[in-house]
């Protein structure tokens, strides 16, 4: 059968292109080893400069509490606010905390004391989260302070207030109990790996044959369009499944992350997803005249697909009109499935909408890939 001969040819060509083999081996490993550590949205290492106008025991404890929280790095003390702000402007520090004169006295006798916080909010997330972390540190500090000074003699306000009222909120973090951002990202990274390899490589394939002229020798044969397109698709199918398996093993070995749900659900979705993505790559390849052109078009689409997939930013937070656009993004459904199965243990029945959506994409893109391949000009 012609398909067998064409497949044999694709595999031979693939293994004779060392760069492709290197790419398929190194790329998933590099993504899995490095990226989970750097795409975390946790805000850490906010550097803080303190202007301590009180220089009391309480202010020293307060500074200690900030440093001990784990989110902040104590940059040091500044003489006054202007000097500290200068360091912020030079990007040497992120936040300035001004402890007013009489901080300890006010805490003891007035029942509270103001603290001024100025934070660099150029990166809005870092600013907001930094400020709220600082607020949490302050709250924790004052609770401790009042608890330990509650019955100090000569502290009428404290005695009047009695024991500090305390509401304890007990939070259960479902599905990602350690609140590890890596766990949230890793299922998404699988998707990046599949899209890059199984989307880009087919996009370069047919157009490469056009550039070399070999496509003409194929077009002159009676090979049918579906057979030719399948011969271009099946290798990436196999590659996609292989690469995904390697990535999943790495996720388990390095990060201890195993799917809560069934591996077979992931497999079923992945086969359909890779089919869609490589069909898309082949469509782009069919319409392109040069490899460069195919690269640029793919780059554009993949960037948009990734940013609009919910991979990095939740779709629910997007404006409504862009939320609508995400419905025509196959990545969206696949990522929902990945996170659902990996973290929440979703079963196939829970993912039927995603399944039908992906299946529709696969059918449409597959048909488009066949239709856009022209044997006759």
């Amino acid at each position, binding site marked *: 059968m*012609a398909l*067998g*001969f*064409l497949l*044999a*040819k694709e595999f*031979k*060509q693939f293994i*004779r*292109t060392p760069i492709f083999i290197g790419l398929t081996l190194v790329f998933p490993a590099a993504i899995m080893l490095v990226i989970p550590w750097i795409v975390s949205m946790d805000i850490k290492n906010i550097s803080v400069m303190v202007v301590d106008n009180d220089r009391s025991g309480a202010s020293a404890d307060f500074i200690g509490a900030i440093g001990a929280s784990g989110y902040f790095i104590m940059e040091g003390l500044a003489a006054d606010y202007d000097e500290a702000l200068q360091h912020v402007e030079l990007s040497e520090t992120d936040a300035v905390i001004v402890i007013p004169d009489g901080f300890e006295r006010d805490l003891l006798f007035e029942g509270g004391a103001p603290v001024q916080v100025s934070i660099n909010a150029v990166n809005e997330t870092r600013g907001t989260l930094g400020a709220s972390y600082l607020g949490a540190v302050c709250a924790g500090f004052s609770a401790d302070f009042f608890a330990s000074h509650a019955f100090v003699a000569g502290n009428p306000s404290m005695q009047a207030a009695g024991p500090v009222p305390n509401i304890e909120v007990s939070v259960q973090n479902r599905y990602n109990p350690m609140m590890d951002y890596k766990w949230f990202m890793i299922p998404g990274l699988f998707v990046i790996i599949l899209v890059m390899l199984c989307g880009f490589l087919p996009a370069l394939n047919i157009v490469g044959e056009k550039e*070399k*002229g*070999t*496509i*003409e*020798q*194929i*077009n*002159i*044969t*009676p*090979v*049918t369009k579906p057979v030719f397109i399948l011969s271009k698709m099946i290798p990436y199918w196999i590659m996609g499944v292989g690469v995904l398996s390697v990535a999943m093993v790495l996720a388990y070995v390095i990060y201890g992350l195993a799917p809560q749900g069934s591996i077979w659900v992931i497999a079923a979705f992945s086969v359909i997803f890779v089919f869609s993505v490589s069909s898309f790559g082949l469509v782009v390849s069919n319409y392109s005249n040069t490899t460069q052109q195919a690269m640029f078009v793919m780059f554009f689409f993949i960037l948009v697909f990734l940013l609009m997939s919910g991979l990095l930013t939740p779709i629910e937070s997007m404006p409504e009109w862009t939320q609508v656009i995400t419905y025509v993004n196959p990545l969206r459904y696949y990522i929902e499935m990945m996170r659902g199965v990996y973290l929440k243990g979703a079963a196939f029945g829970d993912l039927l909408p995603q399944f039908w959506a992906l299946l529709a994409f696969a059918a449409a893109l597959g048909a488009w890939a066949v239709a856009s391949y022209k*044997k*006759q*000009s």
Partner: protein
Amino acid sequence: MGGNVIEVEGLTKVFGDFTAVDHISFSVAKGEIFGFLGANGAGKTTAMKMLCGLSRPTSGHATVAGYDINTEAEEVKRNIGYMSQKFSLYEDLTVYENIELFAGIYGMKRKDISRKAVTILKKLGFYSERKTLVKSLPLGWKQKLAFSVAIFHGPKVVFLDEPTGGVDPVARRQFWFMIYEAAERGITVFVTTHYMDEAEYCNRISIMVDGRIEALDTPAALKRKFGTDSMDSVFYQLARGAKRSE
């Protein structure tokens, strides 16, 4: 239609406002070696691509091996072989793998392929090179391989687009020996060329000028008609009137 393998009637191809092939009509008999001559840009390759089903005609009709190129392009493809101007076998496959791939696409069985390939490779003196990647072969060998692949599945017609471009005289001679052999086996050969000595090897030749066929006959008759004893001179007389250049 009789014994004609190729029948062309008013075949035309227009790209935008440029008429590459302008109402050409001719026929080629079975087993004939038909030379298709013309200056660069005369429309030879475009005409050939239409006959092969690679390019859709703007208007006109043609049948190749009994099939209509407008409506039965895939049937046409089953019955022809083609060797493009630019070498277009897979450079990253070996000699044998290329033969096997294309024979396989035409539906030959693996066993038959290997038997036939061994015979042909031995005859060409290629057998020791069967596992060599095609990219490391010299051009003359590549062309011979491309021709062997084009006729491997036993087509009724083989289309050769400047098959000997850039090849040394010895290799060209060997190449034409292969063409004669194919013609003797009943394969109709449709060949474009720039070399006037090669034109003499053809049974009949047509000369295209600016998309039209200006002359069509046997080499001897053409020379008589133009009152000269060389094809070169015939060609110059016709091509001088050409308005198109490269």
